[in-house]
Every structure is written in C-alpha cells, then in structure tokens.
C-alpha cells in the first residue's frame, strides 16, 4: 500500500460566462435562430417540420434514455434541444420523418448519453449523427436530389457538388452576396451566411464560445483554399466561395466550438480550428465527399485530448 498510485489533480483553465448550463444552451439556440428562420423562409413549411421534429425528438430520446438508465432527468439543461436544433440545421428540408427520428437517436443516445451525458462526449453529437446517417443513407444528404422539386429563384444546385463535378466554371453564376443572404441550396440552417456570422459573433460577445476556434477554422479554410486556387483556378474555387458555402460557417461557429469535444487552452484551440479548416478544404478538393466539414471536425475532436496536452507547466507539483 506504500506505493499506491494517487490521482494527480491539476487545474484546467475553466471559463465561466456567468450563465448556467440551461441559459447557455438556450443562448446558443437563440444565436442560431436567424439562420434557422432564413432556412424556413427559403425552404418553406417542410423545413419547419424537420427542425421542430428534430428538437422535439432529441429531448424525448434524452428523456427516454434517462428513464431506462435510471439517471436523473437532464432535459432541463437544454443541451438535448440544442443538439436537435443543430442536427436539424444540417439536414435538407425534405428529410423524411423517420430519418430525423433515427438521426436524433444517434445524436443524443450514441453521440452523447452512452459516454455519460453532457460534458463527457468526445465527439460533437450532432456531427456523429450526420456522419453515421451520411454513410448509411447517402442519398438523403444529396441536396440536389432532395430539393429537386423546389422552384428556386437562385442557382438551383448545391454549389459544392457543382464545383467538384464541373470545376469553377459551373459556379461562376453564384455570387458571394447570394451565398451570404442564404440564396443557395444546402442544409436548412447552413445556408444563411450572414445570420450564422451574426449569431457566431453574439456567442463570442456573450462568452459562450471562444473566438480562437472559429477564427482559426476560417483561417484554415482561407489559407488552404487559396493555395489550391493558385495551383489550379479552373478546378479549385477561391477562399470566399469555400467560406460561405456548405457547412463552413455553421461548422466554425456552432459545431467545432462544442464544449466537451474542443480544447480549452489557447494554442490547442488555435491548432484545433486550423486543423479542422485545413482538413475541410482537403476533403472538399481531393477527398471523395463534396463537403468536408463533418469529417474534418470529427477528426479534430479525436485529436482534441492530445492537443490539450500543450499547456503551461504548473509551478511546483500539484498533488
């Protein structure tokens, strides 16, 4: 018993925004609302159905899991609702109801609860669900096919697929202003760039997220796409296009910043965001998927514990 190993306790750089967990969850939901409302405006009532069902079933799955696992009821912290909202924002407006119900189960139960609930999940729950569903039912994430019956007054194809299949000549008709105003095909809450930026800045202002991750994420996307663009302007689009289309902005502000799957120290946060941004463009430009945000963030979630080892050494030994 003499050399019994003891736990080494050290202090993490905890951040406190002055709000409790529920206020924080609902704060993030409010920040996401402009993008959601724009999605409902462009894609109509089916989009409202997807978002509503996604939020509602996320809460219900958490409630059911708490009951089955005999754990305290945690739906009051609003985290399940937030996961549901973010998952719904990534879906096409015409996603069938069973798809939403399955996805929310994967997000809340497999993505979060089996690891021990809020704060214990190693991956972003909404992204775990999107990744699993994307690999299982690819066609429901084919935005062109899913939104084929919509009569858009803007370019009616998913910009990232057009770019990958036909090169930059295919996306000449898409203006950056259109992308910013949400006049593009994509996920319900992922198209309105301006809304996502405003929501993201609100989150930074309120202290719900740190500025390091979104900024370095966007910087990673910018730098990598700029290099590709210089190497072959006919095949690879420029930085502005990559930043304002696909899941980039929702990824930078709302997905990569998920608290338990992202680092807490400054340098790790910068490396984490930068890595996710670089991987996003690498997957988009030379990978097999049109959009790389989902897998880029999941891979960086995996690296997160290692990154967080880069931290200032404690003075003296804390035992």
């Amino acid at each position, binding site marked *: 018993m003499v050399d019994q190993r003891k736990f080494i306790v050290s202090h993490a750089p905890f951040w406190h925004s002055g709000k409790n967990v*529920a206020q924080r969850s609902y704060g993030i939901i409010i920040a996401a609302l402009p993008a959601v409302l724009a999605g409902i405006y462009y894609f109509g*009532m089916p989009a409202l159905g997807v978002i509503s069902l*996604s939020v*509602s079933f996320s809460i219900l799955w958490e409630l059911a899991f708490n009951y089955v696992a005999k754990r305290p009821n945690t739906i009051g912290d609003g985290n399940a609702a937030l996961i549901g909202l973010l998952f719904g924002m990534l879906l096409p407006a015409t996603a069938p*109801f069973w798809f939403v119900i399955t996805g929310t189960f994967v997000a809340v139960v497999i993505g979060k609860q089996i690891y021990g609930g809020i704060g214990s999940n190693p991956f972003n729950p909404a992204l775990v669900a999107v990744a699993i569903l994307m690999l299982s039912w690819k066609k429901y994430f084919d935005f062109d096919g899913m939104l084929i*019956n919509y009569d858009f007054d803007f370019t009616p194809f998913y910009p990232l697929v057009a770019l990958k299949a036909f090169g930059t000549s295919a996306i000449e008709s898409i203006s950056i202003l259109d992308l910013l105003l949400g006049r593009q095909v994509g996920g319900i809450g992922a198209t309105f760039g301006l809304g996502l930026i405003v929501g993201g800045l609100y989150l930074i202002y309120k202290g719900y997220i740190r500025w390091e991750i979104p900024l370095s994420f966007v910087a990673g996307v910018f730098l990598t796409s700029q290099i590709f663009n210089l190497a072959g302007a006919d095949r690879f689009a420029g930085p502005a296009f990559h930043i304002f289309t696909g899941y980039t902005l929702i990824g930078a502000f709302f997905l990569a910043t998920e608290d338990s799957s992202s680092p807490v120290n400054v340098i790790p946060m910068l490396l984490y965001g930068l890595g996710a941004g670089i991987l996003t463009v690498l997957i988009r430009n030379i990978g097999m998927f049109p959009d790389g945000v989902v897998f880029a963030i999941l891979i960086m979630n995996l690296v997160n514990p290692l990154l967080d080892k880069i931290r200032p050494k404690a003075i003296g030994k804390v035992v």
Partner: protein
Amino acid sequence: MAPKKELKLAYYIAGILLFVGAMSYAAFPVKVPDQPRRIMFESIAGKVFFDHKTHSAEAGYGLSCIECHHELEEGETDPQPQRCGDCHEADSGDEDMPKKSDAFHKQCTGCHEEFNAGPLNEKCNSCHVLL
C-alpha cells in the same frame, strides 16, 4: 432559472414542437409539381441533372413538348405525356427501340449541337456528375 422551471420549459418545447413537426409533415408534404422543374437521371456514370423548366418555359429555351415527347401529335399538349423510361428501357433487346442511355445521349447532344448551345464537348463530365 430554477431547475423546476427549466424542466417545465423543456417539456413545453418538446410537446409544442412535436405537435408543430407532426402537423408540418402531415399538412405540408413536399409538393411534386405537375410539370417537373428539374429531373435527376441516375446512371452508372453519375447522375445527370436536366432543367426541365428552363428547357420548356417560354422565358427559357421555349421548346415545345413534342421536341422530346415525340409520341405526341403536332401541336398537342398533353398535361401528362409519356415518360421517357416508359418505352426506352435501361437495357433494351428491341432493335427498333433505342435503350434509355442511347436515347438520352442522342436527344441531348443532338439538340445541343443543332442549336450550338449547352454542353457541347464530348467529355462525360460536361453533364454527368462524377464524384
């Protein structure tokens, strides 16, 4: 906010949005228009998107129905013309009936060449989405 209030709020959100979601799915299913807007042809060489609306609309290319739906009589506008795949099968053994891919290739490239418009070169990825 007190924990009890938080719990109550979560129950309200779950209940109300479940109702709204179910109503939206039941009352507002995605409408399939009478005339297709875009058509996705799936093939082993990647899908091909055809903008039916732009090709048929007066403000677009203004093609008459008979240009493609050739079973119609001159001037006839059937609201439900036969679909291409009804006769042109994926693998046709009938010599008189071109198989689906031949029919589409002939129809698309023939018309594009005639009007010197749209994708003209013979690269597959001018039309096929090869990912």
